[in-house]
C-alpha cells in the first residue's frame, strides 16, 4: 500500500473501518450511570440538599454521543474533512473548545479531540467521518464510558475549588476553556460554558462517587438538581 496519508479512493474504501451503531434505537430505553440516583425525581420535587440557599445547580446531560477523534493536526486534508462533518473547524489552540449547534468539540491533546453530539446522532456523525476522511486517523465512540454533568450557580467556583487544583479565575480560565485534570481523587474534563457554569465529563465508573462527593462538598452552599 502507498503512503497512509496519500491514498487513492479505492485504497480508502478498502481500508475503511467497519462501523457499528452501538445504540439499538430510540425505542430501547438507555440508562445513565446515575440512573439509580433518580435525579429526575429530585428535580421534580425541587429538593435542596444541604444549605437552604441552594447556591449550586446540578444538571446531568445523559446519554450523549462521545466521539474521540485522533489525527495529525498537520494534515490539512483531514482537518478540512473534520470541518465538513462538524460544520466547524477543530480547535487547534491548546485547551480550547468550539460549539456549533448541538455539536461541541474539545481540544484534549495536540492530536486528540473529544466531540459531543446528541446521543442518537453519534452513529450518523461517525459514518460521515468514515466517508469524508482518508488516511491514518482514529475515531472511537466512547459514549458508554462517560457522562456529562453541568454545574452552575453563584457558588460554583467555590465548589470547584474544593474539588480540583486548577486555577479557575476568569483571567486564566475564560469561557470556552477546557482542561482535563484531577477531580476529587478521580478525573474530569472541565469546560467553562458560562461565567458561572461549568461542564464536567466524568467516567461512568466514577459517576456515583462524584455524585456523592458533590453532595458532600456542596452542603454548605446547597445543591439543587435540575432536570
Amino acid at each position, binding site marked *: 500500500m502507498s503512503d497512509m496519508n496519500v491514498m487513492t479512493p479505492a485504497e480508502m474504501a478498502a481500508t475503511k473501518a467497519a462501523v457499528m451503531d452501538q445504540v439499538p434505537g430510540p425505542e430501547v430505553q438507555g440508562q445513565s450511570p446515575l440512573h439509580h440516583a433518580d435525579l429526575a425525581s429530585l428535580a421534580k420535587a425541587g429538593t435542596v440538599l444541604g444549605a437552604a440557599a441552594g447556591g449550586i445547580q446540578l444538571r446531568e446531560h445523559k446519554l450523549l454521543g462521545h466521539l474521540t477523534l485522533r489525527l495529525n493536526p498537520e494534515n490539512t486534508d483531514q482537518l478540512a474533512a473534520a470541518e465538513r462533518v462538524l460544520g466547524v473547524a477543530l480547535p487547534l489552540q*491548546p485547551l480550547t473548545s468550539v460549539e456549533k449547534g448541538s455539536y461541541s468539540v474539545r481540544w484534549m*491533546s495536540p492530536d486528540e479531540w473529544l466531540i459531543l453530539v446528541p446521543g442518537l446522532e453519534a452513529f450518523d456523525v461517525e459514518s460521515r467521518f468514515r466517508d469524508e476522511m482518508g488516511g491514518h486517523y482514529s475515531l472511537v465512540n466512547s459514549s458508554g464510558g462517560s457522562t456529562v454533568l453541568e454545574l452552575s450557580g453563584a457558588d460554583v467556583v467555590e465548589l470547584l475549588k474544593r474539588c480540583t487544583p486548577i486555577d479557575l479565575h476568569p483571567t486564566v480560565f475564560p469561557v470556552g476553556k477546557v482542561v482535563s485534570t*484531577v477531580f476529587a481523587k478521580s478525573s474530569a474534563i472541565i469546560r467553562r460554558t458560562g461565567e458561572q457554569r461549568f461542564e464536567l465529563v466524568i467516567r461512568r465508573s466514577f459517576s456515583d462517587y462524584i455524585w456523592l462527593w458533590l453532595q458532600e462538598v456542596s452542603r454548605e452552599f446547597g445543591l439543587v438538581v435540575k432536570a
Partner: protein
Amino acid sequence: MFHIYCPHCAEYREEEEFHAVGQAHIARPADPDACSDKEWGEYMFFRKNPRGIHHELWVHAAGCRKFFNITRDTQNYDIKEVYKIGEKPSVVAE
C-alpha cells in the same frame, strides 16, 4: 508541590497531574539480538543517579497524556527546562 509546565498544554499545572517516568534519552540497542547479556542488562535495568543536572521523562497523566522531558537539578529539585520528545536539552551537566 511543584508547578510543572506542560509543553503541550502550554501552561503550568500541579505536580498531582503528572507522573515521573524515569531517565530520559535511553537509546534502545539497534540490534537487540547482537547484544551481549551485559549490554542488554545495562540497557534494561541500569539507570543514572546523578547529583545535579538530570534529564527525566515525565507524562501529563491527568491532562493531555503526552510524554515530555524535564531537566531537573536533583540537589534542589529546581526544574531547569522542559522540552518535548525529540528535542535536545539546552541545559546539560558540565
